[in-house]
């Protein structure tokens, strides 16, 4: 049932193989390219308290893979961009060639967003500690208020999109919404964490009940990992 080469946009199919070396052509056929689908850092059923294993499998193996394939296709004829790290591509989004800007926005954003999404889950929820907890209290008044504001942002996305928490070099936090696969990196903001509210993220288990999904999502967050991202942001080493 896997259809790894099909993407929603059909962009994965249009690679200009003639422009590539024979070795790369083999890689593309597998498929390949500079960007790869990261392995999940846990089994498909690790987020069962919020997300069923089947959804994890399809979301990671088909949806995320399609974004990786689409991004590789977009940069296939642009060796300079293909050699750049993903966060730098998105941070310099406005400098990207116009012919591939939409593909980078959709597929590059999708790749970055999902890579971040898998990393911050696989935990058992609860609350953050240390500096991150202090920053949440400073910027939102407390964890309960933070969570409520984040959920309101997630519920307020009409159609496909994400709610994110961005973090600046001084550790300042902000909650933002983005449509589709737009990444805050495109606006120069690093992402601490985010929740995918495309229907594909929750439809098999929750159908139209996004509120229930958004509420349960907190049960599988890995606050140790998110805390590391916070530290990395302050150190200037956080990428996607």
């Amino acid at each position, binding site marked *: 049932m896997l*259809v790894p080469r*099909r993407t*929603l*946009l*059909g962009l994965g199919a249009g690679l200009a193989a003639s422009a590539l070396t024979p070795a790369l052509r083999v890689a593309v056929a597998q498929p390949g390219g500079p960007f790869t689908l990261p392995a999940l850092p846990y089994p498909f059923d690790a987020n069962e308290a919020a997300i069923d294993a089947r959804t994890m499998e*399809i979301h990671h193996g*088909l*949806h995320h893979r*399609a974004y990786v394939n689409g991004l590789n296709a977009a940069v296939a004829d642009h060796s300079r961009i293909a050699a750049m790290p993903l966060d730098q591509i998105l941070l310099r989004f406005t400098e990207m060639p116009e012919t591939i800007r*939409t593909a980078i926005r*959709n597929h590059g954003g999708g790749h970055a967003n999902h890579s971040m999404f898998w990393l911050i889950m696989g935990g058992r929820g609860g609350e953050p500690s240390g500096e991150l907890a202090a920053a949440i209290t400073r910027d939102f008044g407390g964890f309960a208020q933070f969570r409520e504001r984040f959920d309101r942002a997630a519920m307020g996305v*009409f*159609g*496909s*999109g994400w709610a994110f928490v961005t973090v600046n070099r001084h550790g300042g936090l902000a909650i933002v919404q983005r*449509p*589709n*696969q737009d990444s805050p990196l495109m606006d120069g903001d690093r992402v601490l964490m985010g929740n995918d509210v*495309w*229907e*594909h993220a929750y*439809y*098999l288990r929750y*159908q*139209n009940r996004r509120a229930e999904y958004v509420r349960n999502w907190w049960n599988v967050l890995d606050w140790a990992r998110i805390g590391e991202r916070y530290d990395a942001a302050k150190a200037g080493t956080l990428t996607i």
Partner: protein
Amino acid sequence: MAFTLPSLPYAHDALAASGMCQETLELHHGKHHQAYVTALNGFVEKDATLQGKSLEEIVKLSYGKAEMAGVFNNAGQHWNHTLFWPCMKPNGGGKLPGKLEAKIVSDFGSVDAFKDAFKQAGATQFGSGWAWLVVGKDGKLACTKTPNGSNPLAEGTGTAILGCDVWEHSYYLDFRNRRPDYLTNFLEKLVNWEYVESLLAKA
């Protein structure tokens, strides 16, 4: 007068053999479409300037206004789904009726060229949205796409005579991530071409 959810012109399980299962239709019509109607009525109740206006008027007056985004989203989606349901029927698809086929061949070159253009519009609408067949202002048929709750009425791109919902909730239970397959199935097995022809005659 509050807006109401229109009844489906077929049973909830009537399209199951054609690739749209009962659960999809129950959720899509009874939950998603109903939620848009309920939300729209909530906005109208609170805003006297919307009261007494037709759905079409509300769609047009709220389009492109940031402060009316909620009104537009829900009015647009009520309008979109109201067009969508009768565009399908049990055992749909098949041969196009004569006048519609002649118009399509005249404007697209062939029925296959039209189908390719329609599927392309739906497959390339990134994220939630709709694919449309419209009679443009020049009188010619064209395939278009719109994001989220928008539509050709709001955007002034012509009179819609066929619409296909490409929000994931339309196809996720039946097709998962395979939107292109959903679009092909829609055209080949679901569309009520006689209804589309009747809208062409009125356009």
